[in-house]
């Protein structure tokens, strides 16, 4: 079930009405939200629901045992076992076939050609998100940051449909306290929720879909058939598409949760206005980058120690961050590129005196954006060969036909321009919206959805981050 579809719209209308109708009992309300989340997730494949429930029980049980254990060694063993079990789930579904394939290649190169068993495993939607959520929960219980919660709350935390398949990675410390009491819906929350849903709908259904179908997909499908102009436009186009696609999901998830009375954290903050790659990672997929910082980078040693030690930690974190997206060499290279540039930034900062002038802001933004866009080519390419063909084509001077259209160029420029609007533009609008009578807001919401529907591409493709 995809957010920008009529099926989801009807699902949400019914859920909204029933969830608020039963608000007298918070426990029943949570049970209802849990069942609705399973219906939402089961629309892909009912077998995945069993995995989700199993994963929730695993994390609930581990956290309970950690909370009861008094010996530090036992607590540590339990948290290690809990993290390992989550990684095992993730590893089996996401990486098993990849590593078997690579092992087969290594054996073949060594003259030991063998037919290794490939399971052709179906990847459960959102498995990377809910396993990371499970890991952070057991680690936080071990660290004493959150108390071990009840089974209903943990299952709902991991299953709650707005964030289930593509984040934000909402941590237990963010959501569990909200589950303890019946939520309240204020006008401001609702105004922000409605605005975020509309803004997300526009970014996904109009900008991302149009760029995907009209430019990016055909060019990346066969880069050798396109000239330099198309390749450059598709690279910029993908930078805008992935931002509009992924941030749209986050915006809609935050908005939908808000209309049900829950608050999700920020996930994007105008990432293409970042002045450095470090700044970029404070603005892009904030819930993942802060997760990697808290549960990987800092445990590895973080910024304590010498420059080379820090660079090593950055490289490991970004390589694993790349691998989190999928079992492909292109994701590893993408992560490696980010790790390398982050390390170079660190080396530069440590090697230069503070009195040296820093790069002018616009130049920093321009350089960072182009490094990120370069990385997106690896990220988007189906294989390493496709990525290399793409880069080869960028140097080609043949006057091939042009796929890029004026509309695509306009959408690319729009997608970049929105990064330079005031930081709190939507909140500022929400301040005004909450003061307007509800029937007028309803007409405005309806008219905006009608406008978006008239502009959107026929049908809606799944969100890019569903595959992760």
């Amino acid at each position: 079930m995809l957010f920008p579809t009529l099926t989801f719209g009807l699902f949400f209308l019914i859920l909204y009405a029933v969830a608020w109708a039963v608000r007298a009992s918070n426990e029943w309300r949570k049970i209802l939200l849990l069942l609705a989340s399973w219906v939402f997730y089961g629309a892909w494949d009912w077998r995945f629901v069993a995995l989700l429930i199993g994963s929730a029980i695993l994390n609930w049980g581990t956290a309970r045992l950690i909370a009861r254990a008094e010996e530090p060694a036992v607590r540590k063993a339990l948290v290690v076992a809990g993290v390992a079990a989550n990684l095992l789930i993730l590893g089996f579904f996401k990486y098993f076939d990849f590593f078997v394939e690579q092992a087969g290649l290594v054996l073949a190169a060594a003259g030991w050609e063998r037919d290794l068993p490939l399971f052709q495993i179906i990847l459960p939607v959102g498995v990377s998100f809910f396993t990371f959520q499970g890991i952070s929960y057991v680690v936080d219980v071990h660290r004493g940051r959150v108390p071990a919660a009840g089974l209903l709350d943990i299952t709902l935390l991991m299953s709650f449909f707005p964030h289930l398949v593509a984040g934000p990675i909402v941590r237990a410390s963010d959501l569990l306290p909200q589950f303890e009491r019946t939520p309240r819906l204020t006008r401001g929350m609702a105004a922000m929720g409605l605005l975020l849903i509309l803004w997300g709908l526009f970014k996904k259904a109009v900008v991302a879909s149009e760029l995907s179908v009209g430019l990016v997909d055909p060019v990346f499908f066969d880069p050798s058939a396109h000239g330099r102009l198309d390749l450059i436009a598709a690279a910029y186009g993908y930078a805008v598409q992935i931002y509009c696609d992924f941030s749209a999901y986050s915006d809609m998830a935050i908005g939908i949760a808000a209309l049900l009375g829950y608050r999700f954290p920020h996930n994007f903050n105008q990432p293409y206005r970042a002045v450095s790659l470090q700044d970029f990672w404070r603005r892009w997929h904030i819930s993942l980058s802060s997760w990697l910082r808290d549960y990987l980078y800092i445990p590895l040693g973080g910024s304590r120690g010498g420059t080379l030690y820090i660079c090593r930690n950055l490289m490991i974190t970004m390589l694993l961050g790349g691998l989190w997206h999928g079992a492909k060499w292109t994701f590893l290279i993408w992560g490696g590129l980010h790790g390398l540039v982050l390390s170079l930034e660190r080396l530069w900062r440590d090697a230069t005196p503070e009195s040296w002038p820093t790069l002018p802001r616009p130049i920093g933004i321009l350089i960072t954006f182009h490094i990120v866009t370069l990385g997106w080519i690896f990220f988007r390419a189906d294989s390493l060969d496709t990525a290399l063909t793409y880069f080869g084509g960028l140097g080609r001077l043949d006057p091939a036909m042009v796929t890029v259209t004026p509309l695509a160029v306009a959408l690319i420029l729009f997608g970049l321009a929105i990064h330079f609007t005031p930081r709190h533009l939507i909140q500022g609008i929400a301040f005004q919206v909450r003061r307007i009578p509800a029937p007028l807001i309803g007409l405005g919401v309806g008219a905006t959805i009608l406008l978006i529907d008239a502009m959107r591409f026929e049908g809606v493709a799944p969100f890019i981050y569903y595959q992760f």
Partner: protein
Amino acid sequence: MTDQQQLMQADEMLSPVDLPGDEETEGGLRWTSIAIAVGALFLLLSNAVTIDEWAKELPPGPAAERLTQATAGWVAVTDRIGLNAPRALVHAQWKRGQALRFDPAPAATSPAPDTSSRLR
């Protein structure tokens, strides 16, 4: 303190949906429910075409067939009144924008990837 100043102060708050001073607003649920109901009614009246297209894509069966007949009838009714005209007008303009090309010669692009998984 101005709205913008309050927002700057709230920058580090938990969620983007938390607006400073929002605790004072009353009747949020009623306000939201009316807005959603009016919005849904507006779309039911003005976007019959999309509802009909959605119904046609449902898995075949007696219920789906009855629904398709009902949505097709609803399209005919709203067409007669002219309620579908605004959407059709915007859609036609958008299609015109999509058809614009830098190169006047028709582009022979490589085969487009399969988009059959798209949902309405």
